[in-house]
């Protein structure tokens, strides 16, 4: 039906007032009276007119005349009653509220219901659950917290952090006006610093000291500025970069930190070791970590290992290139990185490299090619000396393990082996010296074994082949430098290998060309920013690598 309907006929001169609170009850029936209800909503209908008495000259009684207006039909045919009343009474109605009035009443009702529900919510049995801005993070709930929260006001332990939870509405209001900046200090919202607040002070009741960043921090940073609670029951979200950059992106703050750092003893900056971890010790830069920067991919300082061209100080001689070449094989295959660097349980880091697990299978320390079962013990020069001095016993024991049972045969075997040994080493002392100090793998093995030996094991040139062995130890023993193989190189950042398995080892670690122990095979910053940058599309937030809460100094610092 596309044709437009004509407007129906109606009296356009009449003007309805929808703003009035009441309308005639007959309206819905289509015949509202012309008088309409009173402002209070009572029907005022009486009759259609109020007759007037007209007296002509000389008349005593006069004549009642209908006064109904022309607009409403003009004088009625019946005329007024003899008593002067109108003969057309209007039936009374029950006035009804206008739409506008109904809407107003609904507003009042909804407001009242809201107020009531708020009162129930704020002061009812679910008070704290209703008020709470959401579940606290997993860092702040659990068995321990469940036991502790009953000691704090508020059924859910809100009082542990919120002073307002210690009281009623009055206390809430007091706390609100005690807040800095307060409700009537909007001008301070723009200029206020990230200093400690009343809520932050509650954090310190469980996390005392506020001493978990660099010692030269010039002001305590608000805990809650970084750690936003009530964001969900999972782990607390990491702090935003803006929090870190509020200091590290601010030249004034960094300069103040640099000056503060100059007044502190160097020991205050020592990275406190975590038990069981071997950290590579990085010397503190002259200006500390106070360089101003804005983002990782642009102006973040180069990793200290590369910026200061640091070298590995490990005394163990190790040639990555050789071990990854085809010269060294295992089960007919060249070695791979994963043959030695095996992930730890969590996968983030690698198991520590040990002789027994990672070296011994090839470097078995076999000093006698005729008897490869005999191996020099590893780890202690005293043990080596004791082993060498007990060689007749070792050979006798070997004979028995080989099935020689007769005493005479055993003695004959021992005598023969000892004779051959003396032919090569001349004396026991000389043998010990060769075992400890020989280091040239190109020469004949210390005792007997030849390069053409069928054994796939690496030749044992002597302890000094791998270790830094110097004379001058106790009891005439040599001094073998302690091996220090760090398992953490970037102590100020955390690197999770498990998250980087899509990248080949060689893409970051140039091990194949490294011949010296001194080479630190860690990638530089540019290698990281290939992915960790806006162009690379991988997160480059501060919290991706760093934790604010690093521990420094061997002793707790004094409160500033």
């Amino acid at each position, binding site marked *: *039906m596309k044709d*437009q309907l*004509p*407007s*129906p006929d*109606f009296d356009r001169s009449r003007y*309805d007032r*929808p703003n009035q609170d009441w309308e005639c009850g007959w309206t*819905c029936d*289509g*015949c*509202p009276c012309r008088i309409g209800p009173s402002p209070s909503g009572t029907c005022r209908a009486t009759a259609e007119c109020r007759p007037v008495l007209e007296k002509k000259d000389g008349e005593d009684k006069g004549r009642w005349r209908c006064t109904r207006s022309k607009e409403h039909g003009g004088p009625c045919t019946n005329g007024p009653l003899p008593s002067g009343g109108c003969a057309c009474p209007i039936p009374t109605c029950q006035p009804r509220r206008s739409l506008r009035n*109904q*809407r107003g009443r609904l*507003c009042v*009702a*909804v*407001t009242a219901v*809201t*107020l009531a529900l*708020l009162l129930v*919510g*704020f002061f009812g049995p679910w008070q704290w659950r*209703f*008020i*709470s*801005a*959401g*579940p606290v993070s997993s860092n702040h709930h659990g068995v321990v917290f469940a036991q502790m929260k009953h000691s704090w006001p508020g059924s859910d332990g809100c009082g542990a952090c*919120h*002073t307002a*939870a210690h009281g009623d509405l009055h206390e809430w*209001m007091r*706390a*609100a006006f*005690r*807040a*800095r*900046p*307060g*409700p009537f200090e*909007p001008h301070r*919202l*723009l*200029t*206020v*610093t*990230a200093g400690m*607040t009343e*809520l*932050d002070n509650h954090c310190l009741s469980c996390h005392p000291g506020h001493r978990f960043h660099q010692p030269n921090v010039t002001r305590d940073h*608000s805990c*809650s*500025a970084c750690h936003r609670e*009530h964001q*969900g029951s999972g782990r607390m979200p990491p702090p*935003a970069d*803006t929090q870190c*950059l*509020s200091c590290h992106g601010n030249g004034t703050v960094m300069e103040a930190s640099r000056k503060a750092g100059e007044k502190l003893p160097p020991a205050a900056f020592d990275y406190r070791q975590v038990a069981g971890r071997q950290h590579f010790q990085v010397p503190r830069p002259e200006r500390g970590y106070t360089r101003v920067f804005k983002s990782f991919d642009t102006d973040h300082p180069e990793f200290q290992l590369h910026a200061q061209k640091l070298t590995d100080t490990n005394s163990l001689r190790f040639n990555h290139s050789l071990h990854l070449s085809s010269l060294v094989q295992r089960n007919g295959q060249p070695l791979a990185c994963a043959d030695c660097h095996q992930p730890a349980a969590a996968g983030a880091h690698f198991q520590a490299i040990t002789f027994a697990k990672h070296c011994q299978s090839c470097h078995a320390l076999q000093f006698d090619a005729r008897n490869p079962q005999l191996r020099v013990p590893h780890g202690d020069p005293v043990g080596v000396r004791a082993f060498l001095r007990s060689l007749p016993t070792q050979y006798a024991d070997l004979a028995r393990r080989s099935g020689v049972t007769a005493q005479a045969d055993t003695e004959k075997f021992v005598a023969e082996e000892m004779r051959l040994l003396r032919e090569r080493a001349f004396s026991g002392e000389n043998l010990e010296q060769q075992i400890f100090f020989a280091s040239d793998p190109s020469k004949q093995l210390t005792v007997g074994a030849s390069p053409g030996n069928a054994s796939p094991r690496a030749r044992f040139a002597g302890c000094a082949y791998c270790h830094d062995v110097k004379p001058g130890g106790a009891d005439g023993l040599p001094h073998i430098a302690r091996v220090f193989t760090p398992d953490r190189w970037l102590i100020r950042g955390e690197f999770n290998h498990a998250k980087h398995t899509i990248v080949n080892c060689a893409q970051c670690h140039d091990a194949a060309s490294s011949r010296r122990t001194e080479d630190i095979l860690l990638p530089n910053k540019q290698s990281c920013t290939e992915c960790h940058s806006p162009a690379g599309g991988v997160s480059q937030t501060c919290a991706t690598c760093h934790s604010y809460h690093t521990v420094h100094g061997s002793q707790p610092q004094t409160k500033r």
Partner: protein
Amino acid sequence: MSGFVRRRLLWGSLLLAATLAVISAYARWAGATTREAYLSGWVLFGLMVLLTGYNWFKKIPYLPLGRSEVWLQFHIYAGLFTGVLFLLHVRGRWPTGWFEIVLTVLYVLVMVSGVLGILISRGWPKRLTARGGEVPFERIPIVRRQLREQAEALALNSVAEARSATIAEFHARRLHAFFAGPQNFLSHVFEIRLPLNALLNELGDLNRFLNEQERKVTAQLVTLVRQKDGLDYQHALQLTLRLWLFIHIPVTYSLMLCALAHIVLVYGFSAGVR
């Protein structure tokens, strides 16, 4: 360029500029030393107070507060701007606390009802004009009564004139309820003509049993049915144009109360932290 387009461009540009300004300011302040959530919260609350006041400004016309038309434009575009502020204030995440969920739901209700209200206020008058049969909302019952009386008269007269009660019976069975009050509210709102077509088809089918005299009456009844349907259309749309305020305004007051409570809670329990 018509005044309407110029006005829309002006307010739209203002809204866009304010949105860009507040987003860039937020990106800058979201850093270090400002309480951006407090800032956005106060601006949002202040704007909501102004928006709520629009209903009151109209009630005090004697105060020199400017033209209501300007206030309406401000109400619409500032209302849309609160959406930007709200998203920034909640950091684009759905809240997890009960009270905050209540607050968010109330805001969404006000926002959605407001947007729907402005959409139908702008679009539906054109529908009403296109359909025709326009009549002031308050006069609809009177016109409906006139149509009902005309239909009843036609049905009654047809008995005497055509000596047949077929039309009268049909009226009693089918048309009486149709003319008695507003019908097919949802069908009219969603522009569905099925109920009208069904009734007209029934009237058409009735013609097979009628004589010539009665068919003339039926033709008049069809006209009345169309007029009544048009009247119902006017009623449905004009009523909806008024009813959306039954959600928008009461929920606004509820929202303002909760927002006040939210401010007390925020300052009381956060002690000024971010």
